[in-house]
């Protein structure tokens, strides 16, 4: 009940154990308890998409989930995309095509694109545009973000 609850979860392949108050939002747990600061808080009501992470492979808003709900789950955050010094093809594409400016919405953009390209490896530009429409960006005007997603699709296909 209201007292803290133990949770076990895997984030970016690493097992974590934590104890949380039921009301603690998942995004706050990731940032404060696990010190995974790559996931950003933008609106806390599920509109901006900056806090989007992968929950068992599915993109979700980590501001609209409680940490206790992640018990037993496998999460991927932006810290989990690159393999050491090797950027993920989606990260490479965002770098190559200037898919980010201030970088604050970028974690949400990357993970949203990641799920999208898993489901739809050869998207049309319009599909890619729709796919990222759940993440607000005030810097880029989205064109170069869409360029990046399309380029990532290309490289990932040829891998």
């Amino acid at each position, binding site marked *: 009940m209201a007292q803290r609850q133990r949770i076990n979860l895997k984030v970016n392949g690493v097992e974590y154990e934590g104890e949380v108050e039921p009301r603690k939002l998942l995004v706050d747990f990731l940032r404060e308890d696990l010190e*995974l600061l*790559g996931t*950003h808080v*933008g609106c806390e009501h599920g509109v901006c998409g900056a806090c989007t992470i992968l929950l068992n492979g599915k993109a979700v808003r980590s501001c609209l989930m409680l940490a206790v709900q992640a018990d037993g789950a496998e999460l991927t955050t932006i810290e989990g995309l*690159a393999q050491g010094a090797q950027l993920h093809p989606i990260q490479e594409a*965002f770098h190559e095509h200037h898919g980010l400016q*201030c970088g604050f919405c970028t974690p949400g953009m990357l993970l949203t694109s990641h799920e999208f390209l898993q489901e739809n490896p050869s998207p049309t530009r319009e599909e890619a545009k729709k796919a990222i429409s759940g993440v607000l960006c005030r810097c*880029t005007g989205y064109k*170069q973000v869409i360029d990046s997603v399309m380029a990532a699709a290309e490289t990932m296909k040829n891998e």
Partner: protein
Amino acid sequence: MPDPEARRWVGKRYKRKEDLRLLIGEGKFVDDIQLPKMKHAAIIRSPYPHALIKNIDTTQAEKLPGVRGILTGQDVKEMSKPFPCGVPIPPKYYSCAVDKVRYVGEPVAVVVADSRYIAEDALDLIQVDYEPLPVVMDIEEAAEPDAPVLHDNIGSNIYSHRLMQYGEPAKAFEEADLLVKGKFLFPKYGSTPIETYAVVASYNPVNQEFVIYNNYQGPFVNHSLVALALGIPENKMRWIVPTDIGGGFGTKTGVFPYIALIALASKKTGMTVKWIEDRREHLLASATGTDRVTYMEAAVKRDGTILALKDKAMDNTGGYIRAPEPGCAYRSTGNHTGAYQIRHLDREVMVVGTNKCLTSPNRGYTCQELYFSVERLVDMVAAQLGMDPAEIRFKNFIQPDQFPYTTATGGIYDAGNYQKAFQKALDIVDYPKWRQEQEKARQQGRYIGIGIATIVDPSVTNIAYVTTALTPEQRAKGHPKSGSGESMTIKMDPLGQVHVIACTNPQGQGHETVISQIVADELGIDPDGITVSNVVDTHDRVYTITTGSYSSRFASVGTNALVNATRKLKDKLFKIAAHLLEVSPDELVLENQKFHVKDQPEKSIAVRHVAGTAHWHQTALPEGMDVGLFASSLITMPTSKPPDELDRVDSSNTYGFCCEVIVVEIDPETCEIKFHKWASVHDSGTVLNPMILEGQVMGSITHGLGGALYEEFAYDENGQCLTASFQDYLCPTSMEVPDIDIGHVETPSPFTALGSKGAGEASCESVPVAVANAIADALAPLGVVINELPLTPSKIWHLIKEAKAKQA
């Protein structure tokens, strides 16, 4: 200026260095800062737009376990002073409401607790008794003598009021064949960066020093203002802005009152206090652009020549006025007449207060307000003369051979070829073809419209402009202000590697990358090897009062400082090399990281040996030369002078050009808007990095589109903000942004080292009016008057309905 052909890196699509931390979640934003003893603040805010605070009872909240202290308005009044502001009688603006609230969301008290969760629990336990007062929400009503007064010490709601005359407007209006006038309403809209305001403050009671991490857009003038408000020496307040800011667009200049507020919370509670603004707080009470009412009239010759403008513009800075306001009303003085040869201007400026949220610059800083009236009016003039809106613009443009061109209001336009850029935009959309399409469409009862805006985009603010808020007489009494300086430092380490120290704290504009490109060209080295540190730290950075990222300063004055510093360093390298080779510097050539004597390649010394000598063998340097290898430059733009006695001022120091040509179609049933074609052509001088420039342009187009169709801070008649969530304040998503053809014309600026100037704000100034012009053009046959934004389908539907009713 080095021969552009010689440039290896400037102008190239060089990938960003910043990405390599941001892409892996290793950016450093204020919210990422964890410090010992760090507690968390939450702010209780007024639910009333205008009310007396009768009592604040914090006893229950103080008892809540985990609460470390509470700061109220009374504390703030005792611990600080009101912020200074450049108007004749500033309101008593503290970082927190003292005895009266003047807008919904105004801070009333701050709770410091072990977690943000507990702090918010405590807010629920604080009892505030308010006595509601009558509200004033309308700009024009606020200026009426019988309006409820917000600030007794001012006695009215008019913060600033000036009449200005340039040239001989009265005479011009007599000579006119035709007078065309309109009233234009620009909405309250803003920047809403995805990262909200953030402050982490700690106070050391022993040395009485504040260390404050924040995401303010520079030291700029506000570091001094906050020190004055806190009543401390400026050097006892250290501001640190980490490497990354999650977007700014002007709004983050509004962080400063919270810097003071959280600093006081730290001082009172003895804790290090972190405050991260939440989205509701941001939408209610951070800062927005000003809403503006403009009455503008043009005196026109039958051939389409615009002789003069007469206008009255009323800005609304909300419940208080604070720096950099009243800049809203004066910032665009130098470019008031836009891209046109208009020599006479009769101008009335008023800045008023209502019970709305406070203001700050918003990408384009009131040029969108200015051009919404100027460019709408130009279209109205064309319509009355039966002239094509493109033709009338060509007719009135400043000519290429007139640059540098001094405007009637004192702006010194550095360079441009407006005809060339505009023609390019018209060609991209195939303007004549769409005029024909429009004719056909009209016969089928379809609404196709073509919208045009051709505007001048000012960059690099001259701080002097704000003193035009005072009369020449008042100015003569006070201390003059002028300048737009920026600072850069470059050093070469003992092994010959280059590091640049900047203080421009960008919010995503890629300065680290562009700095590397520029230095690489100047020194003939590889940009990958150059490192840049670009954070604000008021204790260990060298900066000027104007330092920061706002008014698109970097590409102009920032690059000037950088090139200047780099050339100083290069000069020193030449001197040392020459000394070591026992020749004179002008006998040396720098090639492939080696200095050699002209025509004697064997007589050479490697750059790294020169660097090594400067550090390791200091007595080997020429007599009297400083040891080590570094150079700084702090320079201003030479045209950055105070206003003259006729209120003429070069309010910005470089001026780009931007034009939009937009083809829309309005669904006659639902009034939804579809974009058929859109060309956006820009001249921001020399292009430093086309990839980054495209990003800046697309960003400002999208921000402008938001203002045109989606974004507004809406209030009901009782002063409640209706758009305090992202469900109601609508930022464009990817789906709202149509395909846009971007074009560039490069007219290098003679005032900057590389010919470059600001670029990232232009379309935010031109798009709102261009879209409005397109919609007005589409609905012209119905006689619909378009003079407000945002143009929602519901609004357009009602406008059409009313127009049809009138026609019938």
